[in-house]
């Protein structure tokens, strides 16, 4: 009954450019002719806490947040963060993980350890997992800060959206001197 609304969940850590990435993704979906809603919580985001952004698109979207077991793609910008949101995935949902570790205070203080078996753990619950090193590809494109655009490139390979929409939106989302870096970052992600 619940029509054809698709849900993408972007997750990671404040400062990784997740809100910008979800803005771009939403705009692309609007360009592609869909109704779009997206939601996140601002405020504490710049201060190193968890950040999530839900993007939902379809013919008519009601809720800006997805319910559990309703997310088609989990785009995880930080390795360990992936594990917090697995319950949101559909059983045939996909996960794209950026292979980067950002330490929370307890790990910095030496009180906890960064989990070593994140991928094994995720594989227990999800069949389709793709791992990328977005920062490495972003450096290759010319700026480490374009890692979020690399992630969008990887995501684009899993969505059936004309690449022209992506390019149009990317060209209009950055100041002129950063357009090439971001287009390159996007394409490196798309072909990764």
């Amino acid at each position, binding site marked *: *009954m*619940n*029509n054809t*609304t698709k849900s993408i969940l972007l997750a990671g*850590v*404040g400062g990784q450019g997740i809100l910008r990435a979800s*803005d771009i993704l*939403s*705009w692309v979906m*609007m360009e592609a002719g869909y*109704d*779009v*809603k*997206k*939601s*996140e*919580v*601002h*405020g*504490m985001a*710049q*201060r*190193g*806490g*968890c950040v999530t952004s839900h993007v939902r698109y379809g013919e008519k*979207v*009601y*809720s*800006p*947040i*997805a*319910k*559990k*077991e*309703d997310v088609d793609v989990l785009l995880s910008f930080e390795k*360990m*963060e992936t*594990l*917090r949101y*697995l*319950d949101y995935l559909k059983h045939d949902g996909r996960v794209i993980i950026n292979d980067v570790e950002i*330490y*929370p*205070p*307890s*790990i*910095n*203080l*030496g009180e*906890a350890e*960064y*989990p070593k*078996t994140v991928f094994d*753990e995720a594989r*227990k*619950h999800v069949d389709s997992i793709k791992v990328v090193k977005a920062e490495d590809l972003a450096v290759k494109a010319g700026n480490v800060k374009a890692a979020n655009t690399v992630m969008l490139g990887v995501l684009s390979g899993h969505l059936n959206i004309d690449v022209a929409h992506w390019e149009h939106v990317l060209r209009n989302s950055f100041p002129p001197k950063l357009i090439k870096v971001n287009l390159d970052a996007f394409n490196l992600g798309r072909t990764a």
Partner: protein
Amino acid sequence: MKQLMSGNQAIARGAYECGVTFASAYPGTPSTEITEEFSKYDGVYAEWSPNEKIALEVGIGAALAGTRAMVVMKHVGVNVAADPLFTVSYTGTNGGLVIITADDPSLHSSQNEQDNRNYAKFAKIPMLEPSDSQEAKEYIKLAFELSEKFDTPVFLRSTTRVSHSKSVVTLEDLVIRDNTTSIQHNRDKYVMVPAKARIRRLEVEKRMNALKQFAETFSENRIELNDPKVGIITAGLCYNYTKDAFPHYSYLKLGMVNPLPVTLIREFASKVEKVYVVEELDPFLEEQIRAMGVDVIGKEIFPFTNEFNPGVVESALTGVPEKSSPEISFPIPQRPPNLCPGCPHRGLFHVLGRLKVFVSGDIGCYTLSFMKPLEGIDATICMGASIGMAHGMNHALKENGKGKVVGVIGDSTFIHSGITSLLNTVYNRSDTVTVICDNRTTAMTGMQDHPATGTTLQGKVTKELDFAALGQALGVEHVRVINPLNLKETRTVMKEELATDGPSLVISRAPCALLQSKTAETIVPLWSDPHKCTGCKLCLSLGCPAISWKRLEDLDFTVEKKTKKQDGIAYIDPTLCNGCTLCQQLCNFEAIQEVQYDE
């Protein structure tokens, strides 16, 4: 033209499109962007007032002068503005007056979860509640029309999810309105002495009765009849959550949540077999609908706390619990927000934590220093409370409290509601040490200007408040200014002032690290020499996100142990380090130095 807009952007756009040219506000998540966005439109006046009470009074004045005025605040801001609120309900307005309250179910960035629909009923003011960005833009226009038609202030209620979600909005052109401003003397209506207020009191009841009639046919109170088995009465984003999970049910969607349309509700209930009320927080609609004699199901199945989502609604209505998180074979470390690298609060609170004093705190980024390892805040209630609480503790503890109680407050927060409390420490003399954490901006809500920054919301240069001169003018004899990024100075001055009789004011001044990163020419990060670091972990006691612990066995190079017990070293991430030098000041082994870049 269509555009993706947040609820906040859409409210600003709607206000602009319907010819609003006046806005006053105090920043507060999730409301802040409404005023910021509005201030950028051509031909409008917008200000950050020192607090929400002043913002409302400014708005009342503008409306009395005949203009359309929008006043914006977060839910707890309405508490501050409550005094004028309850009486402007009596006077009514001249030009339209709309008060936006942005509530925060789930307390994403607030100290409580109060449901401000209660204020609408309490103060006898109509309230509209949009469910997405398009409605937010429409409803702000309807709110101004209602305000002028019924001569009343009107509430527009948003919640975090409406304010911060983005959805597609159709833009329209600006409707240019004639200049409606003038001075009108109408003392019977606007001088609220008892004799006049008693008369206006009756007008309020007449107005609410008229609004009840209006609500029956108001276009945004609408029935969607589908499956007659289940009827849902709801408003705001809960409509979308429920519609997402149960698109085939019948709905009564209320665009106006105060006053309620009694006949329409009874009519809807008569057309469906079972009625559910879906609402976050208080049973505000439910209790009133039950009082109408309509049998509904509500809070016996829905939570009282936290925001909803389609899963919460589905689970409550079907009785099937939501999927629980999958079993992970290890605990996932928590990731709480933290003070930024280079944050000047870190120096101050490191010192306060070590002094073992009771720190009465306030609302701002510095509240985050209550956590390990700083543990530098012991109480937080609301904006401005820190100084009064410290003063009260001082008097209660008498000699036992001497030198042991400090009140800390941010620069913007001090201006908001700390000035009169500081005066109180002088008037009713106590030994309270008040510290203004002056980071030159309203940091937590995203770097808004305030009266001590010397710049207005719309970028005009203005007179800059001098905290030291203000303290002296209030009668504080001990006024000190410190740099919190200098630990020795901070420690010395705090000890001296704690030992002093009578009230003291310490101005702890250094710009916010985020402000600095925008203006500083170059930032020289630090690094820790692994061959000098003894693994004493003193630098880790700062809780800086840039400093982490590396175990010796995990290193890909060999480090000679400086002590038998040493099992690791501190590592500073040069991409995060802001070069504040606090860790360098703490290090007893000269291990921490500036990064020297190769030519």
